[in-house]
């Protein structure tokens, strides 16, 4: 089960990376980066579930917050400098 969840998340990461590379606009890359951080969040959560150590949980919170702040800042950038 855990391995399957990790495999699905890895495939999702590959999908987001494809969009990150092909663009074509800055906003597409912002979406892809946001999705990648989501994959990282879920990956750490699955890792926590797999070995029952709560050490990763603080990292999950930080990553989720950074994802939101990053998206907000990059949205401002898109608005000012063009997509």
């Amino acid at each position, binding site marked *: *089960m*855990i391995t*399957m*969840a*990790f495999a*699905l*998340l890895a*495939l*999702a*990461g*590959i*999908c*987001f990376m*494809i*969009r990150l590379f092909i663009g074509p*606009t800055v*906003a*597409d890359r*912002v*979406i*892809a980066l*946001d*999705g990648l951080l*989501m*994959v990282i*969040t*879920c990956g750490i*959560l*699955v890792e*926590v*579930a797999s070995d*029952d150590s*709560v050490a990763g*949980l*603080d990292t*999950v*919170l930080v990553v*989720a*917050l950074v*994802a*939101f702040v990053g*998206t*907000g800042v*990059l*949205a*401002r950038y*898109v*608005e000012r400098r*063009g*997509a």
Partner: protein
Amino acid sequence: MTDTIAGVLLVFGSALILLAGIGVVRFRSIYARMHSAAKAPTLGILAIAIGVSLSVRSVEALVTALLVVVLQLVTGPVGTHLLGRSVYRQLEHDFDAGDELAADEARDVDH
């Protein structure tokens, strides 16, 4: 039994994240990609957080998972809305059903 439910929830959540990834790669317009990247992962993270809480079974894990879900529910729509507004103002559009927002703004309707 609980571990099985937790595993199923983890796989279900990961599958939703993968669906979002496929949508982000396959959809043609940027709004469709944004919609795919914003909606599916919210339920995915919810399922994964429930799975983690069921599998770890400690108060700390439960509280943090709850916090992550609440954070995702609050920040996800806000971030997507910010980005969508920026894209609407910056890109040239060719909407299938016409530009209803521009029509509303021309009539000075409050949003």
